[in-house]
């Protein structure tokens, strides 16, 4: 079940927060990879970035799941 988190009385779906967080993390990670020169060995960067975003979102969901309502 998708839980909601109350921020100043506004009930925010936790998936929304996780997505925002994952987007921010992807931005940071791609910037680092860019500086390192990782993309030079990659054929098509957008797909790699997309996959990174999905990984990160999945990871965040897994990590945060124990704190969700179903675990209680």
């Amino acid at each position, binding site marked *: 079940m998708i839980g909601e988190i109350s921020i100043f009385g506004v009930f925010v779906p936790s998936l929304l927060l996780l997505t925002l967080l994952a987007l921010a993390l992807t931005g940071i990670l791609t910037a680092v990879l860019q500086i390192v020169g990782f993309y*030079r060995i990659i054929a098509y960067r957008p797909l790699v*970035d*997309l996959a990174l975003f999905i990984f990160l979102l999945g990871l965040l969901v897994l990590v945060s799941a124990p704190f969700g309502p179903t675990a209680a």
Partner: protein
Amino acid sequence: MKIDAEAVLFSLKCFAAAMLAYYVALSIGLTRPYWAVTTTYITAQPLAGAVLSKAVFRTGGTILGAAAAIVLVPTFVNEPLVLAFALSLWLGLCLYVSQLDRTPRAYTFLLAGYTASIIGFPSVDAPGQVFDVSILRVQEILIGIVAAAFVHGVIFPRTVTHKLFQRIDAMLADAERWSRGSLVQQRSATLGRERNGLALDLAELLQLSAHLPFDTARILPRVRTVRALEDQLSMMLPLASSVEDRIDALAATDDGVPADVTALLARVDAWLETGVPDKTDRDARAQALLDEALALEPVPRESGPLWREMLLFSLLSRLQELIATHRDARDLRDQIRSPSVRAISPHVGELVDRAGSRALHRDRGIAIRTALATIATIMLGSSFWIATAWDQGAGAVLIAGVACALFGAADNAAKQIDTFMIGAVAGILLSALYAFAIMPRVTDFVMLAAVLAPALLIIGSVLARPAHGLLALGSVVGFVNSVGLNATYSENFATFVNSSTGLIAGIVFSGLCVKLFLTAGPGSTVARLVRAGWRDVALRARGGAPDAGPWLARMLDRIGLLAPRLAQQEADPDRPLLDALVDLRIGYIAGQLSAMRGAMAPEEREPVTATLAEIARFFGRSNPKTADPPPVALLDGIDRSVGAFARDPERERRRAGLLLLTSLRRNLFPAAPPWEAVAA
């Protein structure tokens, strides 16, 4: 044909993103999924990096705006008019900040302002829903943004980097051609006007480089390297025009341009034509030319034809700077193209490290006026709506506020709003056809997508053409918002007519208010720009802007803003624009003189200080409407300074001082007779 193919691809991508967003929003079970659909169209842009940066700014702005609505609405819930005032103040404040920014980042503030309106105004009648609506809006926008970023970023992306490479190559080729035009005396009438296009190119480069960190190209150039290239490019315009001016002045003297200098100019010309693009021996050939120019420099003495030698000396010195600037610009271009983040040569590394931040022209007066006009529009509309209890009033007021926010800052705001309205009306008419003739027969999502495809694809292909972008934007707002993209078909003709009337009434009203409050035409904008430039020259002459980089960037930015406005205003835009360039050179030199004052001998410092004070007074007071010539006392002051420097026994100081004073005299008094020792 190529452009058409691109427009078709773009339109297909927009449609795919819209349907994706709609599908996701529906699957989650959100009400008002059309917000997500509209977002995919609003963020859609041809360049992938630009879509992603707009997406980021839109997310930030939406969250900020939703937060503002959540704070404001419950606080003023009992007094609708006060609430409307608070929301309009917030919009005005955001609008003011976004106008001062002038980079793509400004979109964040714009959106923060009108998201609060979009959430807040409908909540005036139903304040209990503000929390739900806020979070709904944030979710829908995020879905739309992610869908648009996904489709535009992943499927056949056109990268900012690619466009940047193309533009840089074109700009360098132009800049080299223009510099060559200054060296050989074959000037066409159009050259001067064309050359000011460089100022516009710089503005474009700045906008493009703002998207760079968000781009999806495999190899991204550093923004700092692009800044360094901008620094070099911005020096080219003043340098080339100085060289041109000195050649003219020398040619007008009795002896003309010396033969060896003419030969050197021809060689520099040839180097710019063929040598500069060639990477292998660029440095060696540039160094040879620099050495040659240095060897030709005369040593100005008090006796003999001083003025002529000063001109020659000034010409050669500026020529050396011009050569070095062209060389550095090409080196930086290679650095930008280089796949490695490391500097390709130590010199390039130095240039990149030195790159300053770009300062832009800001007009607080116009920003405040636009903000106040928007506040006034909303307050007038709200008074009418609340007093008459018009049930569509909230929608009308919010669209009026949004229209003011989007278009109020433009010179031709009223015209833009009219275009937007035509688009909205067309969109609503199309939507009526869909909502009452086609949609009732639609039974599932696939069929809906197929039915919507023709309309949305046509709108998308119009959106791809910059000249008609506003029209398409209007029709997106008109069509998508009213066609009834909800979970179930629930269209009601009375509601449709009411809300459409509200939408059109809001746009018409904002158009009227803009005509009422923002009547300044391009003429007054030009005058404001020119005056702001003069005040900046005065500031620098007083020693107030010692750092030349940002000052120069601001002045050039103003030239870039002036160029298109003058082009539409006058038959011959050459003259006042060239003046802006002269002002730039005067201010630049005045700043250098002012910085040099500490190192001068007392008998030199006195006339120079007087001259600078006179320049500051002249530019601080001048009025663009009367355009007075510079006072004669100023020429006298310059000539006295020249005399003082000519007697200076210290060679380096004499050289530097005379160089600056020659330029100053040529720029301020191009028609004055040659300097003579008797004036001292």
